[in-house]
């Protein structure tokens, strides 16, 4: 009986802002009244127990420097660190990143790609198609605005790998098509020493939203949002585990998971 070690990952949450309060309608559909909730911007880096490869799940938003320099229509957050800084602080070498998985192509999830010259970028085909043809309410999110340069996701067009549906990316990492927030949103199931974690992108801003099933305020596919939730629930029945919400400040209170 071989005792070959199984590849297990550690998930490192990388905070790219302080927690920020936003009106509830941003999170919950038709939440006209209510307390502001706080969210954070960030992404996840995955290291493993076998080699020095790093996988990124999303790559965050543009640096404050670039937001200033190119006048991107994005919130100004003085003092917010860039992904480059945060990776350095965590001793993560971006040149060792061979795989980047985009949960979706909104502008707070797919910037900073010039840091990863050795990476292939995985995105759902439906998401890429949608990013190229968004509806007016989504123009800003997909960077369909009149500024020089391409949207961040288009700058690595040659290295974009489109996947369709659920797909095993490599041992211990599966991409699951979970539309809702956007038509091609995907979740990443990651096998860790602590069990599975599901990086569900922006379908849920907080785990409580996943629990309650309270409709997201930012959506393209309403039907899909409910189906996707059932899908993740089914995954949890089969494999156990919990979700990690990239915009949930509480997700960043641990240095790593797994």
């Amino acid at each position: 009986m071989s005792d070959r070690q199984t590849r297990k990952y550690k998930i490192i949450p990388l905070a790219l802002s302080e927690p920020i309060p936003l009106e509830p309608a941003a999170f919950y559909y038709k939440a006209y009244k209510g307390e502001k909730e706080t969210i954070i911007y960030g992404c996840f880096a995955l290291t493993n127990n076998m080699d020095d490869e790093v996988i990124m799940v999303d790559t965050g938003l543009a640096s404050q420097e670039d937001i200033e320099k190119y006048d991107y229509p994005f919130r100004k957050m003085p003092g917010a660190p860039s992904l480059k800084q945060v990776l350095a602080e965590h001793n993560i070498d971006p040149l060792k990143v061979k795989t980047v998985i985009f949960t979706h192509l909104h502008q707070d999830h797919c910037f900073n790609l010039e840091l990863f010259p050795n990476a292939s970028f995985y995105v759902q085909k439906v998401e890429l198609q949608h990013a190229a043809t968004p509806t007016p309410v989504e123009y800003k999110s997909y960077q369909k605005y009149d500024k020089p340069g391409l949207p961040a996701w288009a700058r690595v067009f040659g290295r974009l790998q489109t996947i369709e549906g659920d797909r095993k990316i490599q041992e211990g990492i599966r991409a699951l098509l979970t539309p809702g927030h956007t038509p091609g949103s995907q979740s990443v199931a990651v096998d860790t020493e602590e069990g599975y974690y599901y990086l569900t992108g922006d379908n849920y801003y907080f785990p409580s939203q996943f629990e309650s099933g309270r409709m997201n305020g930012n959506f393209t596919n309403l039907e899909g949002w409910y189906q996707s939730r059932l899908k993740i629930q089914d995954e949890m029945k089969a494999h156990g585990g919990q979700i990690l919400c990239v915009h949930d400040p509480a997700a960043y209170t641990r240095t790593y998971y797994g």
Partner: protein
Amino acid sequence: MFYKIYPIYLGYNDVESSNAFWRSKDPAAYRLTCGAFVLEDESGEYILVDSGIPTSKEVQEKGLPHRQMVDERYYMEEIQKLGVVPEKVKTILLTHLHWDHAWNLSNFPNASIYVQKREMAHAIAPLPHERGSYSLVPGNGGPDWLKAILQIVPLDGDVEFAPGIRLVTTPGHTPGSMSVLVDTKDGTYGIISDFIIHPRNFTECIPVGSINSHNDWYATHKKLQGYDFISLSVHDEKVYSRKVYG
């Protein structure tokens, strides 16, 4: 054939502006009226476009999750004041099956009720957060329109319904919404419920707050630009400043 269009006012609620305009930050409330339209043809026959709302009494008695109107009027009273005889109504056109557009149908035993098949499919099995809008709540016995299901003639797409009346699918607010374009001697009016809550939704391309699909809404916006009409919406209080159109 030219029609006359009578707006039927049923009351109002003051609601957050983002109900009418997607993510609007306007602090002023929006006066959301409820109502319906009655069309009269050249021979004096009436066609109903939408069939009103439940009375506040019914809402309370049945525990319905529906708004009660301020300045409430009763749909059956109002249309009969106009001269509509419920037993004589042969045609009812339903723009969609939300509670505030498709109530009171059991009062019209001789009417054929026209609604998009797509809308029926959706109303029977709406998404969890829409169940209230379609009156699917425990203890209610189901939505009102289900009682009249044997009178329903399901439609599938755009229809040249009659000389002077065109039906056009306009999804966005709900998947099976349709609009009614009516020719009058003053031109064509469009009852574009609830794709348009207020004319600005169309003229400024601002989606309404209650959206089933942004994709659909914008596609519908493009589609409607191919038609010439003046919009009439039951949810726009200004519509009731005239007693009749055409």
